[in-house]
């Protein structure tokens, strides 16, 4: 985890990491509020000026739980030319991509059209974000690849956006968030999975999102830390829903990446699902195999924020239970809880596992090997 006032050379020393890495969770930002306007129809400019986004939450500006830092981002990540952290390609290159030897950087834009109650606006902003990713990022730096963002609550329109981007090598996945109006296995989202499988794109499920549901099954908690820790529980539940609704049974080639919600929970969730399925499978006859098998064949996890046990051998146990071939390294640049690639793995890991973890799993999954 990045500590705000740690005494460190800036930018990070280029010798910190010698081998190339894939960073599977980078958050590009807009430098100005109107940066998307060139990609949006005129009617939406006026709409946004008048009504703004109308999300599944109360706050017009900012998140309901104030972040720990401005924009939840590193204070040292403000670009010299101005604008919020993550909004400048040249500074991202200088501060992160070059010194950390990032060979593949997967962009996961967060402030998109997802979670907007007006589904037409949601779809328009998502499509604009996709154009913007090409124009501002992926066409300017070939190391960067985009994620197709879609208006998540309207499955049919979302599927059209995916088909529109199919075959475009600027994109390597479809991006959803874990918190939606309903659990992610529900039927309203099925067209998204169908189109993604057809396009050969994995679905990335990033922590966060707005669906109007309290982030616990007992209502709204008080603190930002509860939201941050709670993302892991949201992802567990979303994944359970996806498995128990039979999404992987129907879409045998679909891959899914759980992003920024930890991976340490995965073994226990799979054991629990298997145990419950043994007892209750008559309720879900469309789930034909033990849930752990679907999870093992279809699901990947990004690593940041790395689980951080007191004893490092416990971390290695859990990685072995999840599978060295299932983890995709990520930094979460430019966010404050950034994982430094030179620090996340303990000593004693074999070269093959280290390379799989930092680079090869991602290249293989995203078809770039």
């Amino acid at each position: 985890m990045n500590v705000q006032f740690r005494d460190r050379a800036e930018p990070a020393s280029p010798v910190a990491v010698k081998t190339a890495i894939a960073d599977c969770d980078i958050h590009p930002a807009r430098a100005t509020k109107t940066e998307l306007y060139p990609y949006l129809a005129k009617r939406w400019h006026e709409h946004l000026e008048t009504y703004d986004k109308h999300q599944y939450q109360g706050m017009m500006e900012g998140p309901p739980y104030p972040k720990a830092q401005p924009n939840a981002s590193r204070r040292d990540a403000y670009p010299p030319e101005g604008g919020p952290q993550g909004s400048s390609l040249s500074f991202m290159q200088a501060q992160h991509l070059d010194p950390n030897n990032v060979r593949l950087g997967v962009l996961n834009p967060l402030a998109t059209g997802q979670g907007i109650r007006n589904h037409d606006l949601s779809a328009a902003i998502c499509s604009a974000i996709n154009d913007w990713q090409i124009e501002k990022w992926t066409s300017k730096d070939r190391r960067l690849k985009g994620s197709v963002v879609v208006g998540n609550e309207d499955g049919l329109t979302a599927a059209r956006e995916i088909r529109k981007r199919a075959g475009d090598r600027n994109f390597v996945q479809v991006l959803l968030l874990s918190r939606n109006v309903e659990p992610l296995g529900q039927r309203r989202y099925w067209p998204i999975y169908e189109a993604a499988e057809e396009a050969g794109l994995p679905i990335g499920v990033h922590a966060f999102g707005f669906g109007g549901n309290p982030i616990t099954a007992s209502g709204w908690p008080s603190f930002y830390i509860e939201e941050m820790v709670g993302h892991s529980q949201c992802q567990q539940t979303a994944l359970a829903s996806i498995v128990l609704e039979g999404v992987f049974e129907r879409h045998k080639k679909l891959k899914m990446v759980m992003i920024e919600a930890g991976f340490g929970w995965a073994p226990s969730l799979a054991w629990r699902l298997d145990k419950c399925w043994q007892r209750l499978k008559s309720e879900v006859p469309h789930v034909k195999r033990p849930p752990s098998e679907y999870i093992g064949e279809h699901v990947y996890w990004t690593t940041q924020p790395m689980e951080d046990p007191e004893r490092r051998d416990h971390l290695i146990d859990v990685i072995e239970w999840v599978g060295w071939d299932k983890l995709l390294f990520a930094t979460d640049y430019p966010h404050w809880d950034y994982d430094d690639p030179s620090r996340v793995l303990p000593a004693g890991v074999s070269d093959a596992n280290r390379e799989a973890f930092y680079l090869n799993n991602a290249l293989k999954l995203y078809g770039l090997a």
Partner: protein
Amino acid sequence: MTSPIAGGVDCDLHPAVPHLTSLLPYLNDYWRDQVTTRGMTDLVSQSYPANSPIASRPDWRPAKGKPGSRLEDLQAQAVDRFGVRYGICNPLYGVQMVFSEDMADAFCRALNDWLVKEWLDRDVRLRGSIVIPVQSVEKSVAEIERCARDTRFVQVLMLVMGDMPLGKRAYWPIYAAAERLGLPIGIHAGSNYHNPPTSVGWGSYHIEDYVAQAQAFQTQLTSLIVEGVFARHPNLKMVMLESGFTWLPSYLWRLHKFWRGIRMETPWVDRAPLEIVRSNIRFSLQPIDAPPDPATLNRLFEHMQSDELLLFSTDYPHWQFDGDAVLPEGMSADLVRKIMVDNPHATYSRLSQPAETMP
């Protein structure tokens, strides 16, 4: 198979209320009239449909009536069978689901009185949990104080999914009363269904609700710790019942990491979450969401870094294990003794007190 030892404590038994009409003798005239005049139905929770396979082990299912509704069955199938010295009864009757605090209060009082009369008075090994009308903190405290005079009540029972996160300050008078009276707070799987049963909305299936219990325990632990319940009440014990526990180590690693990163938000949390769990939180043994091989489970016990966290339970009559395999394979004799005897006694101080019944 690891064999249970005699003289243990079964910390999670579920005696079932046969029907709402079974509580009529314990209601006053007004509520008796309300139940009958309004044609109120049995309060069965969605969390445990009576015929669901997890609601009862097949060989524990009675020919008629609800699983767990007969004392003789509970004795033969659990208390005698595993040779326990004490069995703690946690009734899961759906009294928490009602929305009126007055009605919930009347039903909780009746349920607690029913437990005394029909179960605790009939087997000296049985102990009880006080079910409270969480809709009203004031009424909950009054019910705790009323029942606590009977020392056979050894804990206060709440559900893991309710109206508000359990750490919220509004609930603290309940915790103060429990700490004062030497009662742990037992938090049991189940929902009052006043909120969707998952943090991402309503799923389609019963199995989803049940799987989601584990995630609900995780969010409640976060709430209890970061709101500062254990800074205010350092002697309060809480027991997670039917929670599973294999999720605990990795959950704590995450919570600990974020606590270190943003502890400025909750400065009253004066100890690391790991330490708070080790001193104040316990977990019932069943269900074990176990890995397929015993070696992995033993690694997990090591990840827990304490042999004081688990309390023996059968979760009777729920179907969590078969035959006598209530303890997982490969458990050391020392750990068996801790889980079955030492840990429950250290948690439930009232087990060591003479049983005094209500005046």
